[in-house]
């Protein structure tokens, strides 16, 4: 057996080792910021402060008592870290930008730098954590007793001291230790590299110890399989039938909230984080650490249940199993592991809480009651802060001790921890709202947290005193004043639930409902809105906005404030940098709003955002920094953003319009050139017959020896040419009239088939002359279209004569079909001529275009198709070139049908 004296001496020695580690770690980190102490591995290990003696001892006990439930405590955090990208990354970024020092600081800073919310959160945290600290005290005490108290011989100097005395000793020792290395100085960002180094070391020790015990147990138990099968033989099975009930969900949710909101977790994960990218490693490494921790818990519990006598405390299996096997060394190692987990938790938790207490309760009080800044104090605030923190550490540990004292009769460890988790979980909805929901307001959040806390105190905290106070147990069974619907463990008649699930359900539901409804009903203040924007949009904006509009404070006043909080050296350095940046002498520095903003964040790192704000407000502008002004500023920014967006839109529109104008211009220019071309073409067309008319008439005019037949021939040429000229001019007039729509156009229902027949009749002579065959395809029934009958006939004649004119094949054929298709009258006129090249497909409808092969001797002016198209267009139809059934071209006229005749 190990003697108690020896065990205690070992524990003290271990603490001294930690102290040395912390001391050198601190110096090393200060001397070299890039040392391995800043590595992601150390960061991850420090996060594992989550695994306290609750894990080390309590989880084994929990596994022995209620099966798999212990796992939820690790699965919840696993989920949070697996999703680090969403929550933790955001939290870390916000905290770095705003120099957040704790959960209370985060919430108070987000909700309008409210000191009241800070106080509320701090008080709840201090009360809520007390059971958790008591758990550690209880674990250490029981472990010392388990390892040494089992024999009279081993009692040593412990003889005669009961567990209360022991716990008191442990608490006092812890307080001393924490004060010694947690509150040596006030840091800009509240980072404690030394402590983190020690915590990381302890993380390794506790993991090694638990794994050692686990391996030992598996070894002497003959392997996993043997352990489980032996247990089954003895009738011990892991009862999983009721594992996945409401309690499973509750503990999962609570642990998710706890890994973020527990003061010490927030401290190590967010505040002590020196590099955002460390989260990448922690995202998988921390869950892996927890998995390693829990792998052996079930075998230890099962094996313990199998071999240990009835009534042995399952919480202590990790210790008593090696002891029972006579492995004193291993037992001592296990003890040190459990001790490690307890000390690291107590140290960090009380440091984190003491920062909250001093920044949110003591500082605001001091600020409120101190009048104008007193002279000659130098490091005043800094020293005051340290004293406040030391006092709060003592207070926190005493609270833990008292809780332990009052509830020492309850035996299991895990339920105590869950009480704390439920209290801390009350911050979670507010925290999520703080960083994701712009509309969450201070009043709603305060009310929600308070309501959740009250229900927690009633349903969860109070019942834990059941065993010591008859009044409480009376209350539990019949409710206050006999009101049975207010019984703490069966609120509103909700009986039959597990007490924890019951408490968590009511407190968190009330919390969330009040938070949501309250935020929707209340309007946040100006400062809240500014902060909300800065927090919610943290990844959109670089640095937080400054909150002081006009810097009417002198540099002297500011320096005085900074010196009181930060100490002379750092304050001076800060001011010098600013002076150098703005290029003036430090003595005549004119503080800009940006500088004041930076100073505020710097101060916030030491005394919390709310206090820093109050402190600077006192100096800047005589304390009346108008919120309206800030509001206005925020609005102006908003307006500026909107305005610039508007400008952007307008300029895009302008660009579009400009492009359209350009297009229109190009079109116009093209039309213009087309007109020029048309004119030149017309003059050319007119000029050819005119020239021949003129020259022939000149010959005739000359008195000479022309005989009658020659004379006759010349006159008839002149006649022909003038006819051609007239025809040309007629066509031009016709076309321009059609284009302008001025001609007297008769619009009446017309028998289209009749028009087609008439056109064929007219062309008959032409066809015969050329020896062209007409192939009659299918014809449509009698169809009426709206338009001018003569004009329609003209179109058909035109198309047919074109087919004739340009066809110089040996067996010329024109094929004419007409049909009714989906309400349209369609006529196809196809030929087997040379066809029209694809590239000319568009040109053929242009004026004066003549088929290339046809040359200029076909007698047309090249206006036929243009006129036909105009006519068809006037009749709301289309004329187009389509791929035809014959080798040549195929023109298709499509006209809308009006009712049948």
């Amino acid at each position, binding site marked *: 057996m190990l003697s108690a004296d020896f065990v205690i001496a070992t524990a003290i020695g271990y603490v001294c080792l930690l102290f040395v580690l912390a001391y050198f770690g601190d110096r090393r980190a200060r001397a070299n910021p890039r040392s391995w102490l800043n590595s992601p591995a150390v960061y991850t290990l420090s996060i594992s402060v989550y695994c306290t003696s609750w894990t080390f001892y309590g989880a084994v006990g929990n596994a022995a008592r209620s099966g798999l439930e212990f796992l939820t405590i690790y699965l919840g955090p696993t989920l949070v870290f697996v*999703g680090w990208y969403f929550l933790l990354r955001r939290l870390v970024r916000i905290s770095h930008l705003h120099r957040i020092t704790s959960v209370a600081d985060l919430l108070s800073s987000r909700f309008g730098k409210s000191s009241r919310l800070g106080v509320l959160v701090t008080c709840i945290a201090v009360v809520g954590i007390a059971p958790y600290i008591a758990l550690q005290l209880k674990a250490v005490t029981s472990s010392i007793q388990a390892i040494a108290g089992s024999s009279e011989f081993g009692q040593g100097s412990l003889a005669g001291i009961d567990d209360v005395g022991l716990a008191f000793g442990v608490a006092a020792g812890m307080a001393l230790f924490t004060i010694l290395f947690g509150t040596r100085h006030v840091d800009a960002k509240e980072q404690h590299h030394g402590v983190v180094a020690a915590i990381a070391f302890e993380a390794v020790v506790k993991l090694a110890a638990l794994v050692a015990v686990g391996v030992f147990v598996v070894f002497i138990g003959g392997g996993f399989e043997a352990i489980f099968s032996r247990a089954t033989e003895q009738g011990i099975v892991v009862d999983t039938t009721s594992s996945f009930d409401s309690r*499973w969900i509750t503990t999962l949710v609570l642990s998710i909230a706890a890994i973020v909101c527990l003061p010490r977790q927030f401290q190590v994960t967010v505040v002590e984080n020196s590099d955002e990218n460390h989260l990448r490693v922690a*995202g*998988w490494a921390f869950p*892996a650490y927890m998995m390693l921790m829990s792998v052996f818990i079930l075998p230890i519990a099962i094996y313990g249940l199998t071999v240990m006598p009835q009534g042995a405390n399952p919480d202590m299996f990790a210790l008593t199993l090696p002891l029972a096997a006579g492995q004193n060394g291993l037992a001592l190692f296990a003890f040190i592991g459990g001790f490690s987990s307890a000390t690291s938790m107590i140290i960090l938790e009380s440091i984190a809480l003491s920062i909250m207490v001093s920044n949110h309760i003591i500082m605001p009080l001091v600020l409120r009651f101190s009048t104008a800044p007193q002279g000659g104090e130098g490091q005043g605030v800094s020293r005051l802060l340290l004293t406040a923190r030391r006092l709060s550490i003592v207070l926190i540990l005493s609270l833990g001790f008292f809780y332990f004292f009052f509830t020492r009769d309850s035996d299991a460890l895990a339920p105590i921890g869950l009480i704390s988790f439920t209290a801390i979980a009350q911050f979670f909805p507010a925290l999520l709202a703080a960083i994701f929901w712009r509309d969450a307001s201070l009043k709603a959040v305060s009310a929600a947290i308070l309501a959740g806390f009250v229900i927690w105190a009633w349903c969860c905290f109070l019942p834990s005193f059941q065993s010591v106070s008859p009044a409480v147990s009376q209350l539990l069974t019949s409710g206050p004043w006999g009101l049975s619907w207010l019984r703490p463990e069966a609120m509103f008649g909700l009986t039959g639930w597990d007490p924890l699930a019951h408490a968590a359900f009511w407190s968190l539901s009330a919390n969330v409902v009040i938070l949501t409804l309250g935020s929707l009903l209340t309007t946040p203040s100006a400062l809240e809105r500014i902060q909300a924007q800065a927090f919610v949009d*943290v990844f959109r904006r670089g640095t937080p906005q400054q909150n002081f509009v006009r810097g009417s404070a002198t540099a002297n006043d500011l320096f005085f404030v900074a010196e009181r909080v930060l100490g002379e050296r750092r304050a001076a350095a800060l001011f010098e940098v600013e002076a150098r940046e703005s290029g003036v002498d430090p003595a005549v520095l004119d503080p800009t709003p940006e500088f004041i903003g930076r100073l505020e964040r710097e101060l916030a790192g030491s005394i919390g955002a709310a206090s820093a704000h109050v402190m600077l407000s006192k100096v800047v502008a005589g304390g009346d920094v108008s919120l309206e002004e800030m509001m206005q500023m925020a609005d102006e920014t908003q307006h500026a953003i909107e305005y610039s967006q508007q400008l952007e839109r307008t300029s895009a529109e302008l660009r579009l319009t400009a492009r359209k104008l350009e297009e229109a211009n190009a079109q116009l220019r093209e039309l213009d050139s087309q007109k020029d071309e048309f004119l030149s073409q017309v003059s050319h067309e007119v000029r050819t017959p005119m020239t021949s008319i003129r020259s022939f008439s000149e010959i005739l005019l000359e008195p000479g020896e022309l005989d009658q037949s020659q004379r006759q021939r010349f006159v008839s040429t002149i006649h022909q040419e003038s006819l051609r000229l007239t025809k040309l001019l007629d066509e031009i007039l016709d076309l321009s009239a059609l284009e302008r729509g001025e001609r007297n156009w008769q619009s009446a229902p017309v028998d289209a088939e009749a028009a087609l027949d008439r056109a064929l009749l007219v062309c008959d002579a032409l066809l015969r002359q050329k020896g062209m065959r007409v192939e009659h395809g299918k014809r449509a029934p009698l169809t009426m279209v709206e338009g001018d009958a003569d004009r329609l006939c003209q179109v058909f004649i035109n198309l047919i004569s074109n087919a004739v004119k340009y066809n110089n094949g040996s067996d010329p054929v024109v094929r004419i079909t007409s049909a009714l298709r989906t309400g349209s009258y369609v006529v196809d006129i196809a030929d087997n001529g040379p066809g029209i090249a694809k590239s000319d497909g568009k040109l053929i409808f242009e004026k004066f275009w003549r088929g290339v092969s046809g040359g200029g001797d076909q007698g047309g002016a090249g206006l036929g198709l243009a006129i036909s198209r105009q006519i068809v267009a006037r009749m709301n139809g289309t004329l187009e070139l389509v791929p035809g059934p014959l080798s040549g071209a195929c023109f298709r006229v499509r006209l809308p049908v009006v009712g049948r005749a």
Partner: protein
Amino acid sequence: MFLLTAAGLLLFLPPIAYIFNHRIALFGVPQIVVYLFGVWFALIGGTAALTARLEPDSAGDDS
């Protein structure tokens, strides 16, 4: 990454976790224990793999 987190949450919650809750032993260990640790391990591996593929962000992008 969001999918991974959501899947993890779903797999740990009653309806699905319950499916694997039978009195069957795999390698001498109850099936549900193997299942929970298996999912856990998969989550850790998945996160490690995903994180490695994620670009380190210095400017801060929100996606």
